[in-house]
């Protein structure tokens, strides 16, 4: 009897946690999104979907921009993170844990402070651009802040470790004798990478993409600190609607739209990549 109950007892604390802090807020969010009214007149549940239509009509540029920035961020972090993770996993030797620690080191400083320090570094007359302008290496009105590059750069910087770590774990788990077997079967280094290392590391890339794309697309800190009026992301819109304007139903509707868009994106991505292969390589 006790043995039969054990799995449920083990699942219960985490399950309750998710129920209270995830499922219930989700239901509340969807419920609020269908209310009508304002802070002054009060909100009534009307089961109306008109906020959804309004929000898509009004904010689809910001929504698309968020998905675009998230996608760019993800692609760039893969390109940066994969070689790093590869080098640490295969060439890191005795200092692997040191390198991993260095990658995690920025986490010891708060997210917002780190982003503000980028604002300071990249300021139009700051310590980098100011000198470059003094030396006439760039023109007087050259600027980095308030451009898509600054926002995507900030997102890449902030989310890089979330890509490095899962790829590193996947690479580290590859049995090194498989590389010897590949060489033994006439594969040169490039073919071994293409046919053995890359396919076996895809579960790590998959995890990294989700850990990077979702928070990057929903981020509002980088756009607020490093971006300008042309780089407003959907996160900023939700923040304004909710905190400044107290338009709770509208903010909830937009949040639900973002959630749906992200889930759809992940679903399509998983189908394209082939979840079966991802799970297979993982199990192997």
């Amino acid at each position: 009897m006790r043995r039969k109950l054990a799995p449920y007892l083990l699942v219960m604390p985490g399950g309750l946690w998710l129920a209270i802090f995830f499922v219930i807020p989700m239901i509340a969010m969807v419920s609020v999104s269908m209310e009508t009214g304002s802070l002054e007149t009060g909100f009534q549940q009307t089961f109306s979907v008109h906020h959804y239509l309004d929000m898509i009509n009004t904010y689809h540029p910001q929504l698309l921009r968020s998905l675009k920035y998230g996608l760019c961020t993800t692609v760039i972090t893969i390109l940066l993170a994969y070689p790093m993770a590869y080098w640490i996993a295969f060439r890191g030797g005795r200092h692997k844990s040191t390198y991993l620690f260095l990658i995690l080191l920025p986490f010891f400083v708060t997210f917002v402070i780190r982003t503000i320090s980028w604002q300071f570094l990249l300021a139009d007359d700051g310590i980098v651009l100011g000198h470059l302008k003094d030396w006439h290496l760039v023109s007087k009105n050259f600027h980095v802040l308030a451009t898509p590059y600054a926002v995507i750069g900030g997102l890449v910087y902030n989310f890089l470790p979330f890509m490095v770590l899962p790829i590193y774990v996947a690479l580290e788990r590859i049995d090194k004798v498989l590389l010897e077997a590949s060489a033994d079967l006439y594969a040169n280094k490039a073919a071994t990478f293409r046919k053995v290392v890359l396919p076996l590391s895809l579960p790590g890339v998959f995890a990294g993409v989700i850990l990077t794309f979702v928070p990057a697309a929903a981020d509002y800190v980088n756009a607020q600190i490093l971006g300008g009026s042309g780089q407003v992301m959907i996160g900023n819109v939700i923040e304004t609607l909710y905190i400044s304007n107290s338009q709770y139903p509208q903010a909830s509707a937009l949040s639900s739209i973002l959630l749906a868009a992200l889930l759809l994106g992940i679903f399509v991505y998983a189908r394209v990549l082939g979840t079966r292969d991802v799970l297979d390589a993982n199990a192997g």
Partner: protein
Amino acid sequence: MGEQAIELIGVAKQFSAAEENVQAVERVDLSIGSGEFFSLLGPSGCGKTTTLRMIAGFEEPTQGQILLYGVDQVGVPANNRDLNMVFQSYALFPHMTVFDNVAFGLRRKKLPKAEIAERVNTMFELVDLKGREKRRPREMSGGQQQRVALARALVNRPRALLLDEPLGALDLKLRQSMQLELKRNQREVGITFVYVTHDQGEALTMSDRIAVMNAGHVEQLGSPREVYESPATRFVADFIGTSNLVELTATSTTAGESVADRGAQQRIVVPLRGQQARDRLVVAVRPEKVGLATAPPGADCQLSGRVEEVVYQGTFTAYTVQTAPGEHIVCHWQNATDSSDVAAVGDTVWVSWAKEHSYLLEDPGKVAAAVSAGVPAGVAGGASK
């Protein structure tokens, strides 16, 4: 045979660990004939796997030459060596079907698709796995995975196949049937096999020739019968099967044999077989060659003693006889017709054997020193030279 498939000339390998150099292979000279089933046999750390990995190209020797049909392979990367390996853990690619695993080498060689399919299918028939091509390695049993690993190597028709303890992970029954299957496969394809094992029974069953390795060098090279019946060193006598070792002082040496006479009809005669005569003798004799009698049997070699232990072991009964303080002779008495004991603990008996079963072991001083110093095998090489 006749032609040499693989030759190792003065091959040595030193690993540089943190602060010390470890001599994994001291100096190995070997010549492996084309089509031969050749085993490297020894305890773990003796350098047998390192030797195999140097032939495969996964390790480069610090010294010496490795010839494949007369062409030096040192410096040639593993993927350009016309050799294939069966790994101890099989090393099958987990993300591919077993068909793709077996086709991997042929695809890298860019063979036409039709030929690849044909050769892979033939191989699946040879290893008796027809109809399982679409499975993943982990959906197969250990024995099946082992056969896939063999097929993946053989399908490339390499000039030699290297096998690193390929049966180590299988249980006893399966291992025994796979031994025979491997041997049959080798005869069918006629490829040179270089087989690494620590299992003396496996090496004796399968090999044409065996190189017994210890502490980074070859102790003895010969057919299974030679290394078992006439061990050259104390190590070989002890590692392959069990041996009685008797240390004696020679009393006379005549016509190619040494005699150690202890008086009271107790003596041991050992043929010299071209060896140097010496005073201190270490003589090895296999337990199954030793007879037991209650009176002096008048044999070439006979010693008297007291039965210390009688252990029934099924096909034979092992009698341990103390013939001198600290000296024991074990006799394996075959239970061929009658399994009742021929002597009891405490009886005074004679152990005897024919002199052709006595083997004078080489250089007992050096070997004994290395063993008693307690130097771990594989590290001993560097220290003793």
